[in-house]
């Protein structure tokens, strides 16, 4: 079990100076996540969910403490190494789908593979595979503006999953979706989690998401209030 740990944080603090005060966004977070987990950070707005995901995703670094992701110490990673870690092993899904508007669905999903330097044939195969998972292969040529919110978020999932990362970090992925689309997307992610063994880490305050979680971590004011395993519906 311990050998399967792929994300570990120890005494993590994140402080933001604000005039004379400091905002403590993360307050002594020590957590670990194993391979294939389907876990969520739950908590009110401002409780530090995004901040924690950003540190784990190597987009940000902690003020104090350490975070180890797939054996990489985030706080001492060079920006090039951090980019490499994200490129190979981490997929992001954001609240506002964040597709690149000038590129087609296919090109959006292809982008991470371009960074990996894969050949055109490989890329095409993998992009269509990813689009199949989210059931959007027929919209490969569409532009983001021509998609509904649910479809856009599915494209974002395909873009996160296309390179088969070990970890997917999803920051409030359903916040802009209606109930039906939310369920659809969550089911897709559950399937991917099962079939590919990808670790999913969410941040959410959406009860619909919570239903699907197998582990629920509550954050309040930057510290862990509870950490419990649950029985998904």
């Amino acid at each position: 079990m311990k050998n399967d740990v792929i994300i570990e944080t120890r005494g993590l603090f994140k402080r933001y100076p604000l005039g004379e005060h400091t905002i403590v966004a993360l307050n002594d977070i020590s957590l670990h996540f194993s391979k294939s987990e389907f876990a969520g950070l739950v908590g009110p707005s401002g409780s530090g969910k995004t901040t924690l995901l950003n540190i784990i995703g190597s987009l940000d670094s902690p003020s104090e403490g350490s975070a180890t992701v797939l054996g990489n110490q985030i706080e001492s990673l060079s920006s090039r190494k951090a980019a490499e870690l994200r490129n190979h092993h981490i997929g992001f899904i954001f609240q506002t789908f964040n597709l690149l508007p000038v590129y087609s669905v296919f090109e959006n999903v292809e982008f991470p593979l371009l960074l990996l330097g894969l050949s055109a044939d490989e890329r095409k195969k993998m992009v269509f595979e990813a689009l199949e998972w989210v059931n959007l292969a027929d919209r490969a040529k569409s532009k983001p503006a021509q998609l509904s919110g649910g479809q856009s978020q599915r494209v974002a999932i395909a873009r996160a999953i296309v390179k088969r990362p070990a970890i997917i970090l999803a920051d409030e992925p359903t916040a802009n979706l209606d109930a039906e689309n939310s369920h659809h997307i969550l089911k897709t992610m559950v399937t991917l989690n099962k079939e590919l063994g990808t670790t999913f880490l969410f941040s959410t305050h959406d009860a619909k998401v919570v239903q699907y979680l197998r582990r629920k971590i509550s954050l309040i004011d930057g510290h862990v209030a509870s950490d419990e395993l649950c029985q998904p519906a």
Partner: protein
Amino acid sequence: MIKFIIKGLLRDRSRSLFPVLVVLSGVMLTVLMHCWIRGTESDMIRANASFSTGHVKIMSRAYAKEADQIPNDLAYIGVSKLIDQLNTEWPNMIWTPRIRFGGLLDIPDSNGETRVQGPVMGMAVDLLAPQSHEISILNLKSSVVRGRLPEKPGELLISDEFAQRLDVNIGETATLISATMYGSMATANFTIVGTLNFGVAAMDRGAVIADVQDIQRALDMQDAAGEILGFSSDMIYRPQQIAVIEQKFNQQYSDKTGEFAPVMLALSEQYGLSQTLEMISSATSFVIVIFVSVMSIVLWNAGLMGSLRRYGEFGIRLAMGESKAHLYRSLILESFVIGCMGSVLGTAVGLLFAYYLQVHGFDISSMMKNASMMMSNVMRARITPASFAIGFVPGILATTLGTSISGLGIYRRQTSQLTKEFEA
């Protein structure tokens, strides 16, 4: 990746259109200025060469020392022998004698009394010899306003402006009053057979052109001439080739002592022309520096505004695992592509305008009224091989420079900040 970048550029007009337009206009102006400067330069060389300096000029050493005073008493004697030698040695050059002279032109009335008189600046050239190139070198045929070119000795051409001022007509007799080579007074009668418009203000003010043999007779200059001009046969001035000829010629006479041994001077060594030509070529560099700076500043600011709009995109790309350095390089590559597009278009448009100016010219005679420089009254652009390339210097330099500066904003921001831009 390049394909990815170019697709983005083509699809997002706001990313490409404005920068391309800026580059296009800057490049267009650079190309146009360059052609104009080249045109002015070649016009100046041509006007100076034909009317005054030749591509090379041979004089006696004494004459050369005081050339601007036209000291015909120091003229070179033995012209025909020297020209024969020159023709043997450099058969591809055109060699021709010239005498410049000053004097008074006196127009008598029917009683033989002076009706009107005016100071003239005269040029004696070989008009009548069948093998002479002077008529085409001086472009005399198309310069005739009234009358015709001389066909036999004793005939004279005068500038049309001067003729009008003196109120003289074709067919009238004119007496030239001047000094012989030996200092005594000389007079000679001519028939005015034609008037000329040189298109060079310094000449139009009061020049006459006579056959060189007439003037040799009138000024007592048997087989003498103040100057022997040499031209390359296609009339194109090639400084390096000319320098070789000059060096070789002067070498041959270096051991000769005496004030009357001949000496050869290239076009650029006369009347400070080399400084003028240098000034012109540094003007080109100056123009380019100006355009690079102005365009860089404009594009830098455009890049800053463009990046603000694109921080969201940058954030996603960084989150996907692109490194900041890679992103920065891709922005520079993007601007390089824009620079190329703008430069190609700008060069095309610039050349189009330049071509118009090359064919039609731009009349500046009103500005040239008092000029003493040998410069044509019509400014023309001239398209040279360099005109096709020169615009790319400011075009590409400015875009890449502008983006290199504005793109540094990526490094100044926290990655997590960039990914937040699109949440807003």
